[in-house]
């Protein structure tokens, strides 16, 4: 009991001691980098539609996503993406570039533990929960759609 009291006091003291991070500069970086990525995506989309008139709007979206996923993966492999991510935070995580990076980075990291149990198995250690929650969410929405 006494110990719990002591731990509670200590945790409160540490919490107060930690210098509060200033959110504004990192928010600013997140927004302008994230915005830039989205603008680039829009640009890809518009150029595809402009240069290849036979492509449908739906397919143009898919091509845009493929370009963004590829670029993020490629930059991860080059060892550049983690530096951009450390600077921009959510700005690179929220767009599809973050998802791509979260799959490529463990693949690179665990390559030396073998192709199957290293790279393939550990590729999803970060993205796995996102995929699971996405699937569960779509199941729930599907059920609602079925009955309502």
């Amino acid at each position: 009991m006494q110990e719990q009291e002591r731990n509670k006091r200590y945790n409160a003291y540490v919490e107060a001691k930690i210098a509060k991070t200033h959110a504004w500069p990192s928010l600013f970086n997140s927004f302008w980098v994230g915005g830039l990525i989205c603008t680039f995506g829009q640009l890809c989309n518009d150029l595809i539609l402009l240069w290849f008139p036979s492509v449908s709007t739906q397919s143009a979206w898919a091509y845009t996503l493929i370009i963004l996923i590829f670029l993020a993966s490629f930059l991860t492999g080059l060892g550049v993406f983690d530096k951009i991510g450390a600077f921009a935070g959510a700005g690179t995580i929220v767009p599809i570039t973050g998802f791509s990076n979260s799959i490529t980075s463990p693949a690179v990291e665990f390559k030396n533990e073998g192709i199957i149990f290293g790279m393939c198995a550990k590729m999803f250690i970060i993205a796995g929960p996102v995929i699971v929650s996405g699937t569960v969410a779509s199941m729930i929405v599907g059920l609602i759609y079925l009955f309502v």
Partner: protein
Amino acid sequence: MERKRGNQTVFFNNKPKIIGHYSIVGPKEGKGNLRNYFSEIEEKDDFFGQETYEKAERVMIERALDGAIKSANAKYSDVHLFMAGDLLNQIISSSYAARSFDIPYVGVFGACSTMVESLALSACLVDGGHFDTIACATSSHFSTAERQFRFPLELGNQRPPTSQWTVTGSGADIVSIKGNGPIITCATFGKVTDYGIGDVNNMGAAMAPAAMNTLIAHFKDTNTTPKDYDLILSGDLGKLGSEILIDLMEEQGYKLGLNYKDCGQIIYKRNQNVLMGGSGCACSATVFNSIIMKKLLTGELKKVLFMATGALLSTTSSQQGDTVPGIAHAVVIEGVKK
């Protein structure tokens, strides 16, 4: 003189000495504050010529031991026991490094307190007359620690402001009853202390209470105060952790003054983006085996209280929501009298 006082402190009457030492670090540490003090700096390749970072860490231990034996002007056959530990699961760096030596091996684990733990144990065994000469070593590598405890290296995430940077390096010491060098006069073994910190990115706060317990036990058992030491050196509490330690000690009536320093705050420069400072087994090991040993040998420092702290968690315990227990061990090292 008595061999043990209080519950935690042992005294060495036969003067076990540190007759050889060596420190090897990676590129980032080489650009830090202690550039001119390390025995060896790998300037570019943090793989140390190996295929994986895990193998690189072993190579660092091998080179550190080799260098320490050379600096003691000894041969491998003069070393009767090799005692080492590191951060990786099942202390593979140390055990695999020991594979390449024809020396009996004892693996120890105290997380980042391993350097002091092995120095204290070596001093006990040497002082007791069981071994003449013991080599002790420890290592850590930024990239192996990140992989085991945190996220893949290339993941574009932001580090929390209270986190620390694992030092890439290895340090080794040769403790012997023969020869000349700084003398280990006593050791205080710490108790596992947990004040309920659950944040694995705030090791300094988790380990500071353990450091306080060990320091108080040490001062009581040895009848000394912080003023009796030229230097009180903690391992890797970092900026936040050492500020907390100073507060906690003051609450207990001990004032840590300008003679208190933390290895984690010494090793890197401020602009190296390491947030709260260095951490890892190699943090205390490389700082001690560079600038501190040099000053002990020149007589600039005469009495040093060297205490290293460790966070005794694993990824399993932290994922199951357990708090982070800390430990701290301390040794007193007295320099060569000039």
